[in-house]
C-alpha cells in the first residue's frame, strides 16, 4: 500500500531492444523474478484450461478442512474446496485484475502525461490539477470508495484500482516529456512541419517507453497488493470466485485449527508480489541508461 510512492525515475533515452532480454536474464533479480512469474503464470493458466485437479468453487462438505495430502496437495478449506485449485485460480484472478488495471492506468496516464508535458499551458494545468487531487486522496480509501460505487465484479475492481494509479503514470511521464520537448531533434521535427500528434507518437513516446515499462512492473505488484487488501476488507472480487486476499481473510478465523488454509494463499501472494518486484528491479537495472556498462 505504501509503496505506491515508488516510481520509475530515470532520464529518458533509447536503447536497442535485442540486448534487453539478455541483460535482464543476466541480472540476478530480474532472472529470479522472471522465473517466479513464469511458474505462477503456468500454474494459474491451468485454471483457464480446466486442467486443475478440482473445480475451485465446487463445495464438497465431506472433505472439509483436510490437511495437505496426496489427494489435496495443499489441503481443503471449510467447504471442502481444494486449496491448490483455489490458489491457482486466485492467482489468475489477481493477475487479470492487476493487468487490466495497470493497462488502463498506463494508457490513460501516459496519454495524460504526454499531453500535459508536450502542450503545457492549459492542458497541463487541468491534468496537473486532477493529478494533485487524486494524489491528496488516501489511495486505499479512494479504491475502497470507488469499489463501493459500482456493482461489484472483477472489472469494476480493476477500474477502481486503475483510477488510483493514473496520476502516478501522469507524473512519471510528464517530466521526461517536458525535457524531451526541448531536445534539438524534436524541435527540428516541429520545424519541418510534422503534426504535433506525429511528433508525440514518433519522437517523444519511444523515448519514454523504458520508464513506462519499469513503472508498469512496479505498479503490477502494487495492484496485486491493493486487490488483496480490498478483498481483505470485503470489497474486492466478490465470492465465490477465489481471490488471494479473500482466501486469507476467510482463513483468519481458521488459522488456529487449520493453518494450511492461510499459509498457501499467504505464501503465494508474497511470492507473486516479490516476483513482480524483482522483475521490476531487473528491468530497471537493464533499462536505466545510468546502468549502461556497469554490469
Amino acid at each position, binding site marked *: 500500500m505504501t509503496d505506491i510512492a515508488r516510481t520509475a525515475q530515470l532520464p529518458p533515452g533509447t536503447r536497442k531492444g535485442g540486448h534487453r532480454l539478455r541483460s535482464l536474464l543476466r541480472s540476478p533479480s530480474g532472472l529470479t523474478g522472471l522465473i517466479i512469474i513464469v511458474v505462477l503464470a503456468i500454474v494459474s493458466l491451468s485454471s483457464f484450461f480446466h486442467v486443475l485437479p478440482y473445480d475451485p468453487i465446487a463445495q464438497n462438505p465431506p472433505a472439509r478442512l483436510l490437511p495437505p495430502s496426496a489427494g489435496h496437495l495443499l489441503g481443503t478449506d471449510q467447504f471442502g474446496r481444494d486449496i491448490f485449485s483455489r490458489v491457482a485460480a486466485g492467482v489468475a484472478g489477481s493477475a487479470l485484475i492487476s493487468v487490466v488495471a495497470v493497462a488502463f492506468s498506463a494508457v490513460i496516464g501516459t496519454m495524460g502525461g504526454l499531453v500535459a508535458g508536450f502542450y503545457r499551458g492549459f492542458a497541463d494545468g487541468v491534468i496537473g490539477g486532477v493529478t494533485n487531487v487524486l494524489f491528496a486522496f*488516501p489511495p486505499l480509501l479512494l479504491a475502497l470508495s470507488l469499489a463501493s460505487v459500482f456493482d461489484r465484479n472483477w472489472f469494476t475492481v480493476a477500474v477502481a484500482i486503475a483510477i488510483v494509479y493514473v496520476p502516478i503514470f501522469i507524473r512519471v511521464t510528464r517530466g521526461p516529456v517536458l525535457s524531451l520537448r526541448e531536445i534539438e531533434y524534436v524541435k527540428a521535427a516541429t520545424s519541418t512541419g510534422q503534426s504535433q500528434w506525429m511528433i508525440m507518437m514518433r519522437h517523444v513516446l519511444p523515448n519514454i517507453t523504458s520508464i513506462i515499462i519499469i513503472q508498469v512492473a512496479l505498479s503490477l505488484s502494487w495492484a496485486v497488493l491493493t486487490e488483496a487488501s480490498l478483498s*481483505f476488507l470485503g470489497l474486492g472480487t466478490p465470492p465465490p470466485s477465489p481471490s488471494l486476499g479473500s482466501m486469507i481473510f476467510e482463513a483468519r478465523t481458521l488459522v488456529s485449527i487449520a493453518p494450511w488454509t492461510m499459509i498457501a494463499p499467504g505464501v503465494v501472494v508474497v511470492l507473486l508480489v516479490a516476483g513482480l518486484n524483482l522483475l521490476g528491479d531487473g528491468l530497471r537495472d537493464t533499462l536505466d541508461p545510468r546502468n549502461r556498462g556497469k554490469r
Partner: protein
Amino acid sequence: MLRKLIHNRIVRRVASMIGTLLGVAVFVFIMLRAIPGDQITAGLGTEAAALSPAQQEALQRYYGLDQPLFTQFFSWLGNLFTGNLGYSARAQQSVLDLTLRSLPVTFELAVLSIILALLIGIPLGMLAASKPDSGRDAFGQFVSLAGLSVPAFLLATTLLSVFASSFGFNPNGQGYATLAGDPLLNLRQMLMPAIVLGFGIAAPILRTTRTAVLEIRSDDFVRTARAKGVPARRLQTKHVLGNALVPIVTMTGLQFGYLLGGAVVVEQIFSVPGIGRQVLLGIQQKEYAVVQSTVLVIALTFVIVNLLTDLLYRVIDPRVRAS
C-alpha cells in the same frame, strides 16, 4: 505588483494547495452520493422498506437529505470555514471532536512507524551499500524485498494470532489507552501495528539509502575527502549520510503522507481508533459529513506534509543551500 504576486512561488504554491483541496472536496462529495444507499437505509437496513412516506420524509429532514445537493455542498463548505466540520449522529459528537481524537492517534502511529522504518532502513541501506553485490548487500535486498512483498494485513493477522494464542500477549484487546492517559499501555498497543507498518516502509527507505549512498560515494567531493585522508567512519556518517539525507527525507515525507490514510487495514485489525477507521465507519454508515470532512483533513495534512518536506529539503540540501 499583482504580476509579481502571481509569480511569487509561495503564493502560487498556496493557491495550488487550495485548488487541490477544493478539488478533493468536490470529488469526495460526488463520489459519496454515487455510492448506493443513504444514512436512512444504512441505519435501518431492509426495515427501511417498511417506512411510511411520512416517516421517510421525517427521517430525510432529520438527516438533512431533503436539501438539494447544491445546498448540501455549499452549506457544508461554508460551515468548514467557521470550523464546523459537521456532526455525527452515530457518535453524537461533532466531526471536529472526533477528528481531534483520531488524528493524533494515526499521527502517533505514523511517527512510530517511520521511526522504526528509519531505524531498520538506514543502517541496513548503508550496510548494503558498503559492499555492493556482497552477502550483506544481498541481505539488505532480501529485507527490502520482504518489506515490499508481505502484505500488511497478512503480517498483522499473523502477528496478532501468534502472539495472542501462544504468548497471551495482546495489549490491543484492552480498551485503547491514549498516550496522555496511560503512556505505557499506549506504547504497547502501538507496538505491533507500528512494526507492521514500519516494516513495509523500511523497504523503500532502505533502497533509497542504498542508492543514494552508492551514488554519492562516486561523487567527486567524497573522492577528494578520501584522498585528503578523512577517516572512513567519519566519511561514512558525515559526508555520505549527510548528502544521502535529501532523498531519504523526501521518501520519508511521502511515506508519512500515505500512512495517514493507508493505515486503515492495520487500524482495523489492531482496533486502533485512528482516522482511517473514522473514514471507513463513515462510509459504512453513509455519514456524509464525517467522510467529507475527514478526507479533507487527511488531504490537508498530506499537502502540508509535502510542503514541509520541500522546505526541509531546501534546508538540508547543500547544493540548494549554496545557490
